[in-house]
């Protein structure tokens, strides 16, 4: 550990401590070390900037020290911990070390929970992790980038959502086909008359294609607009439910394009299939003769 720049890597440490608030701000508070508290903790304990709090390592008051609240902060949303209550305090590292130091153990004053390292070349993260792990047994070293083997929880969730989306597309395709068949049936006589006056099947098919393209594009655009309009509501609900700033739904450009890429060809195909049944029939049969 000594080879790594502790001070630079951990300017602040995040500690989960038991906070006991003394709700009176006094002039003497200016000499106390400053801390920042999470919004959630501030709301729960009704703390404001300038308040004095006592932090201890346990309910018995072990290692207790007084601090001055300098402000509140919104914890960085962590998808792995979004269900956890973020009751957190940020103290300067030397203050935390003083609190957690064990008298009989000189090494405790030089102990850390984690070190964050920013590499000059992020591509070497795997090699760097392996090198540190081999030099410091007992440490767990891992790159912050998502695992590429598809084993990280969000890759699994993504696969699940893609599977659900695929099923939805399958169901809606069946419905779309049913609607298009009905629509074609509605226009049976019209198509019969058009064919009787000499319009070629190819022209009719092109017209159906253009119509399908127009309807499918309009439907896809409407769907995206609806998703963009409702994403805020979905986010607000989940952010309220879990008291987090995490964004749960975001309609990105790539998602919008994917939706169009799936829905437009499906819409056109459904229109073509529906109309094809009519084009195959005899003209007189279409007119009921």
């Amino acid at each position: 550990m000594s080879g790594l720049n502790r001070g630079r890597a951990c300017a602040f440490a995040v500690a989960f401590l038991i906070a006991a608030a003394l709700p009176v701000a006094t002039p003497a508070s200016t000499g106390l070390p400053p801390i920042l508290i999470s919004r959630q903790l501030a709301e729960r304990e009704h703390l404001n900037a300038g308040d004095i709090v006592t932090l201890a390592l346990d309910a018995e008051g072990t290692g207790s020290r007084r601090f001055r609240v300098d402000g509140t902060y919104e914890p960085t949303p962590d998808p792995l911990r979004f269900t956890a209550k973020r009751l957190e305090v940020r103290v300067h590292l030397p203050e935390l070390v003083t609190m957690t130091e064990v008298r009989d153990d000189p090494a405790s004053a030089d102990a850390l929970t984690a070190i964050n390292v920013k590499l000059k070349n992020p591509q070497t993260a795997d090699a760097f992790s392996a090198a540190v792990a081999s030099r410091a047994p007992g440490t767990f070293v891992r790159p912050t980038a998502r695992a590429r083997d598809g084993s990280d929880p969000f890759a699994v969730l993504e696969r699940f959502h893609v599977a659900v989306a695929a099923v939805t597309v399958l169901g809606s395709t069946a419905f779309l086909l049913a609607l298009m068949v009905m629509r074609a049936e509605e226009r049976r006589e019209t198509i019969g008359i058009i064919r009787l006056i000499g319009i070629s099947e190819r022209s009719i098919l092109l017209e159906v294609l253009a119509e399908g393209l127009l309807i499918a594009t309009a439907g896809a655009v409407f769907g995206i607009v609806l998703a963009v309009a409702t994403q805020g509501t979905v986010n607000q609900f989940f952010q309220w439910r879990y008291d987090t700033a995490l964004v749960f739904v975001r309609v990105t450009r790539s998602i919008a394009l994917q939706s169009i890429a799936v829905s437009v060809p499906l819409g056109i195909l459904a229109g073509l299939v529906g109309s094809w049944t009519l084009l195959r029939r005899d003209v007189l049969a279409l007119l009921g003769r």
Partner: protein
Amino acid sequence: MTAWGLAWRTIARSPARSVLAVAGVTVIGALLFDMLLLSRGLLVSFRELLDAAGFDIRVVAAEGSMVHRPPMADAASLAEAIARLPDVRRITLVRSDTAIAITAARSGGGTRVSLLGTSDLTSGSVWTLVSGSLLPSATAPGEVPVLVSLRLAAALQLQPGSSLPLRLFLPGSASALPLVSAHVAGIAQFSFEAADEYTVATTMEGFAAAHGKPADGVAEMVLVSTDSTQPGSEASAAAAIARLRPDLRVLSNDQVMEQFNQNAFSYFRQISTVLSSMTLAFAFLLIATLLTMSVNQRLGEVAALRALGFPRRRIAANLLWESVLLVGVGGLAALPVGALLAVILDRILREMPGVPGRLHFFVFEPRAILLHVALLSVTGVLASLYPIWLATRLPIAATLRREILS
């Protein structure tokens, strides 16, 4: 002809359209059924897993939770005190750590394993012995007998009698202990082992020996089994344990479930609610559109029936039956399709790291079928309201005139 018969004929008249509509309801219904299974699946599955372990009460340190369990001092003496309580049948101490298994079968830095120390030496609750023998009740000082999981045995080609070198680490220190040579007593299947985890279990003495220490009476969790034949034994035992050690947390299975329900499982419950609602809204829109288009195509027919003396009630019943047929057949077909889809979706979600191999996200419950039927029925009825209104309020003379002219 009855309204039912008329509805059947209407549907049979356009087989392609009807088959596609039923297929759509089937797929959407299958998704709805799966979301209903997901809404309580984790809870039911986790409860089964907890109950199968055979313990009613779990004691952990007050600062910890079921996931993060700091060691409790004097756990062995606490276990002795708990054993003397009248309602208590069985007690097990549990400790855990991570270690690196070093074998010639794998190159590189070894295999990370979860080392479990336990005082429960019997098979059938937390683990099931597959081959070899159980952990011995008494061991020589320094000896580390272990049970390894099936997955680890397969990965490292271990057999009962094999030697398994383990490297352990001092907590809070960046240094390793000397290599410990564990002796594989048997191979077992562990209930709580995750798909990405390798488990090694040993006795409490073996656990301490692996750390280079004599047994110190420390444990992370005390599992207590009470006499289930006596009503209220669980509550009274929990209260007695809390009195013995007020500094610890005493949790019943219900309280453990509540903790997981509020935190770890809530996302899937929420997502299932959102997806169920969207599925129902989607089904409503599509069925309503199909029926409305169907009515629009048959306005002349409906007007003629009305002119012949068919009451509005029968027209409404006809459309309602049409909706019931489409939704009913699709909804019924959705059950086997949904079951198949649930297996696929469950397999995807169980790839999540840290999820016990025996935990399932989609679990069948009879109430899911009842809810599925009720929700689809309500949706079908609601979706047919507008087309019914359209058909029953139709001006007979004007519609017939328009039909003749067109």
